[in-house]
């Protein structure tokens, strides 16, 4: 179980191999990778920068991961979130959950990314032809996260 925030890119194949290595109880691995798009809200995006609140990020991500572990029988999980300057096509975030069963792996992955989108203190700023702008939070993200509250 690990949470990392870093400026450097991550090697998806290496991270997933490390996550599952040697654990033959794993039957399914769910993964989500978020990438920088070159268009958002109808406008071209030439670059993105990601700011965060380090001490709170660590705490929130650890809480979110603990919640996932309490809900699903996970063998392993990983969250990596990048900060700093990114370009279209760059990786932003990696979420991975491994379990004996595929449904747990897939559901926990969806849960982690939904909560990360609404709770983890990261802020995106996009460079567009109109200038730089802070990305607005989306109501659809709140709705997605609310699915898991019951």
């Amino acid at each position, binding site marked *: 179980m690990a949470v990392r925030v870093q400026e450097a890119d991550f090697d998806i194949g290496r991270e997933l191999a490390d996550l599952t290595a040697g654990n033959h109880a794993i039957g399914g691995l769910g993964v989500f990778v978020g990438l920088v798009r070159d268009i958002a809200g109808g406008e071209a995006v030439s670059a993105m920068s990601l700011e965060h*609140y380090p*001490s709170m990020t660590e705490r*929130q991500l650890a809480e979110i991961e603990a919640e996932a572990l309490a809900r699903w029988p996970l063998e392993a999980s990983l969250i990596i979130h990048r900060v700093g300057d990114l370009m279209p096509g760059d990786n932003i975030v990696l979420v991975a959950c491994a379990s004996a069963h595929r449904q747990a792996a897939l559901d926990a992955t969806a849960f982690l990314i939904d909560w990360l*989108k*609404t709770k983890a*203190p990261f802020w995106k700023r996009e460079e567009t032809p109109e200038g730089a702008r802070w990305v607005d939070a989306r109501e659809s993200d709140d709705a997605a996260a609310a699915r898991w509250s019951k």
Partner: protein
Amino acid sequence: MKLMYFAWVRQRIGTASETVDAPAEAATVEDLVAWLKTRGPGYAEAFRDTRAIRFAVNQEYVEPTHPVAAGDEIAFFPPVTGG
């Protein structure tokens, strides 16, 4: 207490963090915001619509009515947009 500002809140105020001695009347997050708004036009602009702002005390999300005390780390920021 230590105040931290992020994203456009930070930009409007013009600083990322500061340590302040708030007056005794600033007993809750919303009281603290009311006092901060008196400190200059950047603060007034940043806190113009507090519905657009989220608050954390000691790295946990709180409501505006949450108490604050000397020694707390209090953060102000827009809704998060990571992931």
